């Protein structure tokens, strides 16, 4: 009774369609780049490419944070205002308290992690739906940023080197031909670390497992609450990094900024093929999604399309991307 000579033939097919979807986003990006390069000779200029990458860095980092939470089957609406909150905390530590730069960096990331811990606890322990919990946190953080800063921007003029965090170029100082800004470098570092955590660590495994079938994970004897809180905390910490990036780029913490960023981040995640129902998603996809959004914005601007139209196009692309995903699933 040696059963199963028939190793299932299906998985290969699915892997191909899965890859196909990632390819879809990627080929979409390539197509956009080709179209814009043909339409305008300025598009592929080094400076413009660097500008696109720099413009992707903040949204990209936020989208990575959002990806982690979305893979668990949740959602994090607070990433944008949390980013601002972390920037403000950093401003308080550096400018108001006059502490050294490393402490400011640490404070921003710690503030993000703490906020993530709170969101995660509200979701996991109090069973408040993630949408509501993080909507509440979004407003709380927005208000706190305004309160702490006295509604005024905090400038980093007293901290030499602060603007270098995002705007300097370590790579450029070594290879002058490649003046890639540090902000872009940080985005890729965060992406690599997040992809590593997702793919190779226990936390990553539970991130997928929670989104796939939380009850099954719980019945397997796993403390699901603790891991869920950990994912939100990690996402919060990453928002702290985004806070540093935006503060460095503006050389200030702008307390009124932030709301609206969460939607761009979620858009990047969705375009990148991560399922809002949880259980599947990739960091690479999110990066591609974030790049598509900034390439679109940049390209349309170069073509002198009015800014108002850019959001119309982005919105259309989100719907098309998710529809493509639905088509793919229907074929399964």
């Amino acid at each position, binding site marked *: 009774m040696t059963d199963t000579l028939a190793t*299932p033939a299906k998985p290969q097919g699915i892997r191909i369609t899965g890859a196909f979807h990632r390819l879809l986003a990627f080929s979409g990006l390539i197509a956009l780049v080709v179209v814009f390069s043909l339409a305008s000779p300025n598009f592929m200029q080094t400076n413009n490419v660097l500008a696109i990458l720099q413009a992707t860095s903040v949204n990209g980092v936020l989208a990575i944070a959002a990806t982690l939470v979305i893979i668990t089957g949740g959602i994090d609406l607070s990433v944008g205002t949390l980013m601002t909150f972390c920037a403000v905390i950093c401003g308080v530590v550096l400018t108001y308290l006059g502490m050294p730069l490393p402490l400011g960096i640490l404070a921003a990331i710690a503030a993000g992690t703490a906020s993530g811990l709170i969101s995660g606890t509200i979701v996991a322990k109090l069973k408040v739906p993630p949408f509501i919990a993080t909507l509440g946190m979004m407003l709380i953080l927005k208000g706190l940023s305004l309160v702490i800063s006295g509604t005024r921007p905090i400038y980093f003029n007293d901290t030499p080197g602060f603007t270098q965090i995002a705007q300097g170029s370590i790579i450029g100082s070594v290879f002058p031909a490649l003046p890639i800004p540090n902000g872009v470098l940080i985005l890729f570092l965060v992406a690599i670390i997040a992809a590593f955590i997702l793919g*190779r660590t226990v936390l990553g495994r539970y991130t997928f497992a929670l989104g*796939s079938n939380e*009850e099954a*994970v719980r019945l397997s004897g796993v403390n699901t609450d603790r891991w869920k809180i950990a994912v939100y905390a990690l996402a919060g910490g990453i928002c702290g990094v985004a806070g540093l990036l935006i503060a460095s780029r503006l050389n200030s913490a702008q307390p009124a900024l932030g709301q609206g960023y969460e939607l761009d981040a979620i858009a990047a995640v969705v375009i990148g093929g991560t399922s809002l129902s949880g259980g599947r998603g990739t960091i690479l996809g999110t990066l591609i999604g974030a790049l598509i959004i900034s390439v679109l914005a940049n390209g349309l601007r170069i073509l002198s399309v009015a800014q108002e139209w850019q959001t119309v196009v982005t919105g259309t692309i989100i719907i098309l991307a998710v529809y493509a995903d639905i088509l793919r699933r229907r074929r399964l």
Partner: protein
Amino acid sequence: MSIQSASASAASPLATPIVAMEGIEKSFPGVHALKSVRFELLPGEVHALMGENGAGKSTLMKILSGVYAKDAGTIRIDGQPVEIGSPREAQALGIGIIHQELSLMRELTAAQNIFIGREPRKAFGLLLDEAALNDGAASIFKSMNLALDPRAPVESLTIAKQQMVEIAKALSHKSRVLIMDEPTAALNDAEIAELFAIIRRLKAEGVGIVYISHKMDEIKRISDRVTVMRDGEYVGTVPAADTPIETIIAMMVGRALTTEVAAPRASEDAPIALEVIGLRRGREIRDVSLHVRKGEILGFAGLMGAGRTEVARAIFGADPLEAGEIRINGKAVSIRRPEDAVKAGIGYLSEDRKHFGLATGLDVRNNIALASLERFCAPGGVLKDGEMRDIAKRYIGQLSIKTPSDQQEARLLSGGNQQKVVIAKWLLRDCEILIFDEPTRGIDVGAKTEIYKLLNALAAQGRAIIVISSELPEVLRLSHRIAVMCEGRLTGFLPAGASQEAIMQLATQRQSAVEAPHAA
């Protein structure tokens, strides 16, 4: 562990039971689910647990596997009393359960599923050791003699293979007790043979297996002993080999006779209201043909998952059909959506009222009017609220719906009265054909009687009625004629007053997977 030969071992009373449950009690709000139940499992035994839907089998096993806490009673493992407080503690005691609904993470691979919660790690516990994970899964598959890629995502596997992954997961916990809840529900015959081969291998290794199933032939094929439960009580334990199927069925249904019989049908040869011919969809609906006459109540009996709801939903246009014809009053109609069915005069009362039948947040008045809103529509789309109120009040009176007013939120009514609201909705829509799916589920006894009376009255008015029910006494009490399904097929029709045993025979009558062309 005692020494045993593969076949005789199980029945041997000398072996210490791996599991001995005594006096187990469990109550849920409003339901006394288990009443002093006992159960015993020997090493190397396949012990079937049988009973009608709601007899308490799954509840008992959920207590053994740590999902529910018992209210009273003792559980002994290898003779030692234990308290099982969580699934994890059950696992530590060597008890594995394969739930009726597979509890796998579809997006993860087979190996990742097997080791969830116990992933092998490296680099001081920081990283997953994916190689060790896959090797571990591969060696379990090898011990099961199963060719399966540990790296295959679970969603890419057939249901049978997914089941094997569940078994592998349980075995990876070094389970000595394996509980299988309806493991063959979604399997075809070849896959069942595969599963049984694995069960026999486990048995030979001394693993005790609890096998919950409704399927008589399987019980005969695979199990050593059978324990029967009824209404949350222990009925008895018999050897599987020398107990006739009839005896087991008699134990399951009990001797309680239904006191009341169906009200007589208005006319034997009333015109046919609804006729369906050759309905088909995959394995759920296999060539189902039936008809209902005006004024007739057709009972639809069968075990859970037999395909009755599927047929009803297909007739109502809620799910697609692959083939088949639906005729209403002798004329073929095309029903693609519920909208078409409602226009053709079919009303469907879902078994899941809260999800599909009732808008729980709306008041009684709006629920009654919900399927007929256009009739209350003044020009410009404004609703004629006064008219709606009058009609709602009329139905509240006619069906004696107990509600403080027609503006009470529907969710605040009792189950029986909610059901009446849904009935009123379809009556207002002038449905001549009404399909009731488990009309009295979750309704107390007094309200049941009222619903029965109402159904009889509707039939007397000449409406054609189909009643799906998993409670045999209910089917017998209501039906003028009984259709029985098993595994997507109609296994037969019985006249009113048929015995419960006759129904159960048809309801457990499996057919070989090779579909013989059968005459209509």
